[in-house]
């Protein structure tokens, strides 16, 4: 929900983290019941790493937006809509 309701770009990013973490919990929990090895836990670790890099890129973009617009409010990023 955080993704859809928040206006602040950083808060939206936190919502995205929650989505990824929910999937992670699923993966690790199901891995406990799986017969073949630790596939799920391995996948969860991959997801954590990817999520970190994703946030790094996203924050860089938010920072650039702040430099250009002096705000991180997503409603103001509407130049393309016109």
């Amino acid at each position: 929900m955080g993704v859809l309701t928040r206006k602040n770009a950083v808060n939206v990013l936190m919502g995205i983290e929650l989505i990824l973490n929910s999937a992670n919990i699923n993966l690790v929990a199901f891995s406990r019941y799986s017969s073949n090895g630790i596939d799920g836990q391995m996948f969860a670790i991959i997801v954590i790493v990817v999520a970190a890099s994703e946030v790094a890129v996203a924050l860089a973009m938010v920072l650039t937006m702040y430099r250009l617009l002096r705000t991180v409010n997503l409603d103001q990023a509407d130049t393309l809509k016109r």
Partner: protein
Amino acid sequence: MIMDNLQSLRYFYPELTLIVAMLLVVIADISFKRLRSVLNPLLTIVSLLLAAYFTAYINHSQEANLFLGMLALDSFAQFFKLFLLLAAFLVVLGSLQSEELSQVHQGEFFALLLAVTLGMLLMANSINLAILYLSLELVSLTSYIMVGYLKGDRLSNEASLKYILFGAISTGSMLYGFSLIYGMTGSLNLYTIRDAFLSQGVQGFDQFTTLLALVLALAGFGFKTALVPFHFWCPDVYAGAPTPVTAFLSVAPKAAGFGILVRFFFSGMTQTTGSEWGLVNGINWPLVLIGISVLTMTLGNVAALTQNNLKRMLAYSSIAQAGYILMGSVVLTGEGLKSMLIYLFVYLFMNLGAFLVVTIIYNSDKSFEIGDYNGMFKRSPFLAFAMGVFMLSLTGIPPFAGFLGKLYVFLAVIEKGLIWFAVVGTLNAALAAFYYMRVIKAMVLEEGNGNVAPLQVSFLNQALLVALLIPNLLLVFFWNPIDRWTASSARLFGGL
């Protein structure tokens, strides 16, 4: 046959080439200050050609699994690898003389482009959900950066931000779908997943959960291919990104997305019965895809009608084209897959061509508005002719290559008895003709707005335009080889 890591390396040369070249570009960029503007594109082009050579040279027809069941080695993968490398190659050539990109330092651009290409090669032949997610994110993350490459440009930044937020949400949903599938089947390998679905029967699983997992997974693929409920980023991103990047995004990741969509649904969710694919009992995913395809075509075409910015118009047109391409995948026949590959192949040439013309005109006029294309025929007949061919080809008018794609897709659908679906497609093609013709009308019939200076097209761009025009004009005469090539690419794709 399942190969272990060391055995697999021999078949991994194309990807290894790209990895090495990517590092070399970064090193060359920081160590040769004066030579780097020549060295970087050169390295990129050479590595792409080398990777293509390896891909063509490696025998893909033996149907093996690489890296203990992570990647597939089959003709389907070979087709997509060659396709993606060709797309990257053409985009590198097209980006060399782009005014938009020359304002900023270009070294990273080529490294990023190689990284995206690497991600797409992995994506198109991954058969394990983990590697699928990883490669999809590699493509996404690098393309976010490429879209936002013009750091001081508001539009570019905004496009990138929208892209990254939509992208993160869609891939997050996809990941949740994957985790549900993993929970139901206890495996990440697509073939094992299918076997689990088959052996336990879908009745053993909760129908609703299965469908939910599929729709969630589709969000990720739909985001990459810009299918309708997941297309919102597309017009804004295409309009805001530097034009060569837009051209790249509209062809290569879209094709890779279709590759992975086909792999996911065909390897994971169907069973082979003779020459056709049958549904894994109870999961009717083609029905979902038919709905999405109809929506995609119609919405893309209707929205394109009112656009005045050519880049936005081409964005909606590429959404509509994705709808046509998707038509081929719902019929579950070899013919359907073949038609998809043919459509993708011709789409490469016509769409890259259209975007190249947009790049060239922006170089001198600094405008993307269709109104500013008025009287282009007088200023540069060659450019207007080229754009005319690309537009007619995108419409699907007979002598041009686009016709071939549409013909095959509609035929495959009709053969399966879905005549109403083909009718919807044809009506959409007629609707699309309106806005494609509008560009031609602006260029040829309208009076110019005072600007009559002849438009200079550099030699490189002229050569590239001719290279893109030739397939558009002549592919129809090479019907047979294409037919055979794509048929063999589609047929061998049964997997293990």
